[in-house]
């Protein structure tokens, strides 16, 4: 059984190496995504969470979150991302003769709505990862400087526990 355990552990490490190897795209600043993937994903994420008074998804670091996890906890979604991003560009070229990243904001919105209809599994994947990256802990690369938490009115860095009380008067502020 020891051999089996060692084998499983060894193969897991080999598997991780292999995945990282497949993903090593030349001339990309990202761990998994190619530069083109990143531009396409930016276009989609920023429709899911656009900029207003507060940053958009990509401005808050959502791509860092997704890219990092695609070679870690989200390894099993690598294929879905490559396929889904290619499909997004296909849709955009077919309709506007442009890659999605080059389209106008109006055109991007149309394409992302089309993805939601035609490729719902991929859309839900990107939607949930985008929201996780934006509203989750900054330690994972998204929600840069806790920007979404500040948007919601939470203190950043978080003040928790008895520090919320006005200790001098013994009551809540």
């Amino acid at each position, binding site marked *: 059984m020891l051999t089996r*355990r060692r084998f499983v552990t060894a193969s897991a490490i080999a598997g991780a190496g292999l995945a990282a190897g497949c993903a090593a795209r030349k001339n990309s600043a990202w761990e998994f995504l190619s530069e083109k993937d990143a531009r396409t994903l930016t276009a989609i994420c920023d429709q899911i969470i656009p900029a207003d008074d507060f940053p958009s998804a990509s401005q808050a670091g959502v791509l860092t979150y997704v890219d990092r996890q695609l070679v870690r906890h989200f390894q099993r979604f690598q294929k879905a991302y490559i396929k889904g991003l290619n499909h997004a560009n296909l849709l955009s070229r077919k309709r506007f003769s442009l890659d999605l990243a080059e389209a106008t904001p109006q055109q991007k919105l149309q394409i992302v709505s089309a993805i939601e209809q035609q490729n719902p599994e991929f859309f839900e994947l990107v939607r949930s990862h985008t929201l996780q990256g934006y509203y989750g802990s900054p330690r994972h690369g998204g929600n840069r400087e806790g920007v979404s938490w500040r948007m919601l009115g939470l203190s950043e860095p978080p003040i928790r*526990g*008895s520090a919320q009380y006005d200790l001098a008067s013994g009551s809540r502020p």
Partner: protein
Amino acid sequence: MKRVNAVVIGAGAGGGIVAKELSMAGLSVVLLERGKWYTPYDCRKDDLRNQRTAVLGNAFGPEDHGNPRVWVDPAGAEHIALPSDGIYQNNAACVGGGTFSYGAMAWRYLPQDFRMKSTYGRPEGSSLEDWPIGYDDLEPFYEKAEYEIGISGDYSGTPFHGPRRRPLPMPPLPPNREFEILEPAAKRLGLHPFHIPMARNAVPYNGRGSCMRCRWCVGFACEVDAKNGSQNTVIPTALSTGNCELRTKCMVKEILTDNGGSARGVAYFDADGHLQEQPSDIVVVSACAIESARLLLNSKSRLFPNGMGNRYDQVGRNLQGHHYTGAVGYFDFDTYDDIGPGASIAVTDYNHGTPGLCGGGLLANEFIRLPIQMIDRMPSDTPRWGLGHKRAMRDFYKRNIVVMGPTQQIPAADARVTLDSTVRDKWGLPVARISGNVHPHTFEIGKKQADRAAAWLKETGAVSISRFAGKGVLVSAGQHQAGTCRMGDDPRSSVVNKQCQIHDVDNVFVIDSSVHVTNGGFNPALTIMAIAYYASEALLRNWKGTQFRS
């Protein structure tokens, strides 16, 4: 390996207490736990990696690699489930088990919860049954759990609880803003709101300090060690006797049987993956409902070809947890003050007595309000993405209250754990295969409970309300999993007797939520603890040295 009196498998709510009771009585005990021993230092407050929101994995086990299960959906299709998937029905794998990262509501079940069949009759197609023991049998042990583990709260506001001899050992924490908003509305509706009993220090207790009120309870370790589980109460006590040895990262392979049909110990993989045998006089299985059933089914021998205790194909049946239903109310003023533990107020008026329904459940406000948990709890007319969703998050994050509760689940015999014939874990053991569903009457109760939560929020002044209900396609188990080794007098319809002893094998006991016949309309932790004290006492009463006979 040196023979010991008892091997206890699983250092959670049940096993921790059994280890303490047995070692205090002078028995030599080995406590085996497949996970690690974490400390308050391991509380990372990571909202994407914890036992509640596990999108990046479970913080307190099991890890995704090497621990799969198989889930069979209602159409019969099989799915491989990883521990961080909802369909896995995970609890935890660490010293303390679920109690290390639970929300720590510490409810006693009501007297009717032990007599469901005689109170309501058995709905067709269900396996609803009475417990062979009653509230009165457990009352002294509920009290013992409340004092030894450490529970705060105040029952004086409600008549809906069983008789009790002593009040809780600690007062409740002062009310938070949600309590203040919800309490008068509940009273106007004629309900009896009160402070939730919690395994949490409201004042210094048991040598540890009090809650700092940070609201990061459920899913997380307590940073200041003010939340009480088996890992910081009974397990340290067990170890301090000198009679108990805790071995972590040890996965039990099977219970070993001698030629006479008694257990002679266990085989387990140690932290380095080496197969070991630990001989013992008795074996106590406390691995939680899914894993306890799996271990018994994996313990096959000449005398027990279908697994230990499984002569009548009962092991693994009646898997149940709780379907949570409730409502979110949206307000035009701030309701959120970020004061922990969050959940503060409950009513138990609805647990029993509704004509046409077999029980009900408690209703309470929710623990945490992590932004990530609110993304799909916006008002029903909110777009799912885009600027509209972002604005709704901004508008309603601090202006909503969630009221919900665990619905009394009507058990069904085909909601069950079996062994998968092909999928193996990293030790090469067949994994748990989860199939079936709860009885549909459960959803009728859940729907009524959601309506009641909505009515409470409406009276509170919510400007809009969304109801939510559990997913009906899923068997519900998760952190409240129970029922797979039913307690009963008849060996043909149950697995253990009223002392938690397997009918077939007099020196093997199942002492955890597996023995629950029904699971109440309450979080089950305190009942698991009370049963562990109760069953330990019975075990010690019948202990005749190394030759155990009932």
